[in-house]
């Protein structure tokens, strides 16, 4: 067999390409269901983690249905739209213009019966996308907890954003409170190089400045989109409390009337 003839070379290349293509595409198709399942379970696991519930990937499914009560999609005006938050692919949404973006929002009730609002995050790190989930208490100001993840940040440096040390800074405890609103104005949370201070800053990861800045930008950009919705629901709260006052007035009114009548 003449290995170095042109015709042989071309035939060899053609056969090799066909075999490799067939092998790779069948592997891709065959493994797809398993891979998507893993990704879906991981998403549920992350959502649960963002309200402080740590479960293994296998238990994520059942716990998810227990704790997550609503999967909403809202738009930039704060209007609730059709669809489920879980089906929204945030990676595609963030590329769209703001008015046509679907903003996914999960509402959960945690172990202590507290309502938590979970906002999915998506941004850019140094080498590729970063994402995560941040949850707010029902005052829509105090951060309850957050999780982060990344595609390809450098291990030991930028990749530390999904480490416990970084994520714990967002967890609301007796000694640690992080907030996003200052005197009624949205200020977000800044990941600071060096020592952070106060309720609106967290420590960055050493050697991961660009990734840290990416996290800052991501939290700011994503959370700001939900402000109209937050405003609309806190208005609801206000309306509710006004109504309660009116009812109380009525009650006291009748009581005083009754008193008057008695006096009469």
């Amino acid at each position, binding site marked *: 067999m003449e*290995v*170095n003839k042109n015709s*042989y*070379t071309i035939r*060899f*290349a053609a056969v*090799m*390409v066909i075999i*490799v293509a067939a*092998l*790779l595409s069948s*592997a*891709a198709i065959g*493994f797809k269901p*398993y*891979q998507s399942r*893993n990704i879906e379970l*991981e998403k549920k696991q992350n959502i649960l983690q963002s309200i402080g519930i740590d479960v293994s*990937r296998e238990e994520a499914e059942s716990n998810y249905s227990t704790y997550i009560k609503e999967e909403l999609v809202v738009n930039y005006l704060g209007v609730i739209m059709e669809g489920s938050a879980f089906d929204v692919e945030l990676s595609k949404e963030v590329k769209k213009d703001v008015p046509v973006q679907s903003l996914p929002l999960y509402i959960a009730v945690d172990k202590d019966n507290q309502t938590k609002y979970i906002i999915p995050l998506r941004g850019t790190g140094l*080498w590729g996308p970063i994402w995560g989930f941040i949850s707010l208490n029902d005052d829509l100001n105090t951060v309850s907890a957050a999780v982060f993840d990344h*595609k*390809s940040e*450098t*291990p*030991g*440096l930028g*990749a530390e954003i999904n480490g416990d040390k970084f994520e714990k800074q967002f967890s609301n405890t007796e000694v640690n409170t992080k907030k996003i609103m200052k005197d009624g104005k949205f200020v977000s949370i800044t990941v600071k190089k060096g020592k952070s201070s106060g309720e609106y800053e967290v420590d960055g990861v*050493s*050697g991961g400045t660009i990734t840290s800045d990416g996290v800052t930008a991501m939290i700011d950009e994503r959370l700001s989109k939900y402000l109209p919705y937050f405003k609309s629901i806190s208005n609801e709260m206000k309306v509710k409390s006004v109504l309660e006052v009116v009812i109380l007035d009525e009650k006291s009114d009748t009581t005083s009337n009754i008193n008057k009548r008695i006096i009469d």
Partner: protein
Amino acid sequence: MSNKQEALFSKKNIKLIKDPLDDNNPITVQVLGICSALAITVQLKPAVVMAVSVFFVLCVANVLVSLMRKMIPSRIRIIVQLVIIATLVILVDQTLKAFLYDVSKELSVFVGLIITNCIIMGRLEAFALANTPWKSFMDGVGNSLGYALPLIVVAFFRELLGSGTLFGLEVIPPNWYIENGGFYANNGMMILPPMALVTCGIYIWVQRIRNNKLVEEN
């Protein structure tokens, strides 16, 4: 097989494994695959995982190329080698994503980096194309171990001195740290890329002190 008379673990074959560990180490002597060595030695875990993946890819690619060595047209041999390596790496990546999801997350970008690791191309070109499958396999084992050794040593010191951990576990007693009233602080420099080069350099230095064969005459 033409060399049936030669034992599987003859002295010659054992040398194929032993040589790359010291005298002909791919990283410290041939200075191949150095970029990955710098990138993933911040912590031990990714270094070990990378070493295992390179072990698998190099051994299988070496054997495959050796089996095909009489069929591969010499003019497109580099492309053929590259296709074989890339196919293996993608298959490994897809399999991990489907069945060992946590490991695949741990590896993230490094799986892709294996394709560009010059040690693998180098061994296919220099060894597997001219030798029998068994010898090529031994060569693969030797070189991937030779790759793993400096990688793990450098990662050990970088993680220990840079983060005070090993495999993510704290090994420095917490009360040693200055913030807890002690005297010790982690060296932040160690986790930055330049210190990978310096640590690698120290490794080479120590290796040359111990092994006179490596010292140039003039």
